[in-house]
């Protein structure tokens, strides 16, 4: 039996060593290595000021060793970005900026990597209160990746940056430019994800400009036009309905505007699952409207 146990152990150990070796430079091995380095980086980022510089250097070295070991891995660009973040945690903003700019240039063909690196650049500019460069990086995303999820959001973000700085003139101009941009997208790419997102962001711009009726019209349009597309899922529907209710009921104090949108939806898509939800909302809104009348008549009877 001892001999058999030894044979079994040799088979198990041998298979383990062989399978580990065969994939030692593969993508899985890269994921494992990067995860472990990140774990250490996350530990030090909990209290960055108390960490000695030698620890940062050690982790930075591990990232570079990873890049040398896995030069063709899909995770290599991310490793560069993580080095940049490490510099940012140390408040070494010049090196962080240099690293992120390198990633944007080196991996410009990969939108997700380039956008991630550009966003990191934006964070540094925001931290260092370099608003001109902050807006510049956002415009870069808009120029290079206009129809990505983040690219579509950029015009609104730029306007909000001006607004947060108290520069209302620039903010209003930025909102108007954003609305014009979104109208372009809607016109050029109707009935697409980009069009629906553009309608939604244009509604945000109108709201921030105090133009609720225009915002409401656009949100109603998103709801009705995207009904039979993957865009209108449980999450987006909830956000849209809550926003419509908030604008009509609270901002404009006229729930009939929301009811009209829901009725338009029901007549356009009578068999849609949301139609039943909207029917319920219409009934409830009717009850809410009836309550003040009931209270009034009760007071009159007294």
């Amino acid at each position, binding site marked *: *039996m001892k001999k*058999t*146990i030894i044979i*079994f152990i040799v*088979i*198990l150990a041998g*298979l*383990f060593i062989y*399978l*580990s070796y*065969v*994939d030692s430079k*593969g993508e*899985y*091995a890269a*994921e*494992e290595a990067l*995860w472990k380095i990140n774990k250490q980086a996350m530990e030090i980022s909990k209290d960055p000021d108390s960490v000695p510089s030698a620890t940062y250097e050690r982790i930075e070295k591990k990232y570079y060793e990873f890049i040398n070991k896995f030069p063709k891995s899909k995770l290599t660009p991310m490793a560069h970005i993580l080095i940049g973040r490490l510099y940012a945690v140390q408040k070494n903003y010049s090196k962080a900026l240099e690293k992120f700019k390198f990633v944007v240039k080196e991996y410009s063909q990969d939108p997700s990597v380039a956008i991630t690196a550009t966003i990191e650049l934006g964070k540094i500019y925001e931290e260092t209160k370099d608003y001109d460069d902050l807006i510049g990086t956002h415009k870069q995303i808009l120029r290079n990746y206009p129809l990505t999820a983040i690219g579509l959001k950029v015009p609104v973000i730029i306007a909000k940056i001006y607004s947060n700085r108290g520069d209302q003139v620039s903010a209003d101009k930025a909102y108007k430019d954003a609305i014009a941009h979104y109208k372009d997208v809607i016109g050029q790419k109707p009935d697409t994800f980009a069009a629906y997102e553009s309608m939604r962001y244009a509604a945000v711009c109108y709201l921030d400009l105090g133009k609720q009726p225009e915002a409401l019209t656009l949100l109603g349009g998103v709801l009705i036009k995207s009904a039979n597309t993957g865009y209108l899922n449980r999450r987006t529907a909830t956000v849209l309905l809550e926003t419509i209710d908030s604008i009509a009921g609270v901002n404009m104090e006229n729930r009939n505007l929301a009811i009209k949108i829901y009725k338009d939806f029901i007549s356009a898509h009578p068999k849609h699952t949301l139609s039943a939800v909207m029917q319920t909302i219409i009934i409830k809104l009717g009850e809410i409207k009836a309550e003040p009348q009931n209270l009034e008549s009760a007071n009159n009877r007294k």
Partner: protein
Amino acid sequence: MAQNKNPFQALKLASSILLENKAILFPYVVIAFIQLLLLEIFYFAPRHPLNLFFGPIIKKLWSDNYLHYPLNFVLLPTLFQNLQLPVYILVSSYFMAASINILVAVNNGDKLRLGNIYKKTFASYVHIIIAAAISVGVSLLFLKGYELILNRALIIRSESGLYGNIKKLVIYGAPYFNLLLNILATCIVVYILPIIVIDRKNVFKALFLNIKMLFRSFFFTIFIVLVPSMLYVVIILLKNSDGLQSTAPELSAVIMACGILFVTIIDAVVYTTVSTNYLLGKEEV
């Protein structure tokens, strides 16, 4: 030798028989090897070259995310458990029955001819796999029953007071209750396999005799199964330590490997004890 009425003495006797006659342990070594081999294959499933086979299956049945580190360790127990059931029914039960046959041969003082023993065991293979399926069925029934209680506890809104405490007990005690239910399920069917092998009865007669044996010595049987099974509490404690596994996700695979070894030891002790006691009981008669 008289049949033991004291479960601790019965366990002690069985353990010494196992240590003196290592041939009885050999089938359990094979069971452990097969399970560890399967675990190792699933451990490497997301990696080349095994991902060529497992990749499409995991993507289709679960998600692409489970082919990446460290999420693959979340799926590993599910993958292993899904295959463990058919392996237990079709393979492990056969080797456990072979071990009982070796015990019988040792008890009778016969020369150990392993080839003949495995052939003799194979003659009852259909009954053995039906018995294993019954054993698995009883366990799953108990576990499903607990799942219903757990689902009911999850919808209790109280976080304190009597209902809150019941909720916490059911949720946090789930691994331990599952262990106890497994022990109870094992007790209910523990004599079937020894009766099939020793008395060469068919599975249905063995089931009837098993119930008779159980009624005759219920608490004795519970203790025989319960005491060695307490070894598994170590595995439950290790599995529940999130801190340990978040440090190195691979530890979950190591804990599973330890679990395989512990379960093999538990099964070896339990079935040897039950079979020894059954044999001694027959000799008395």
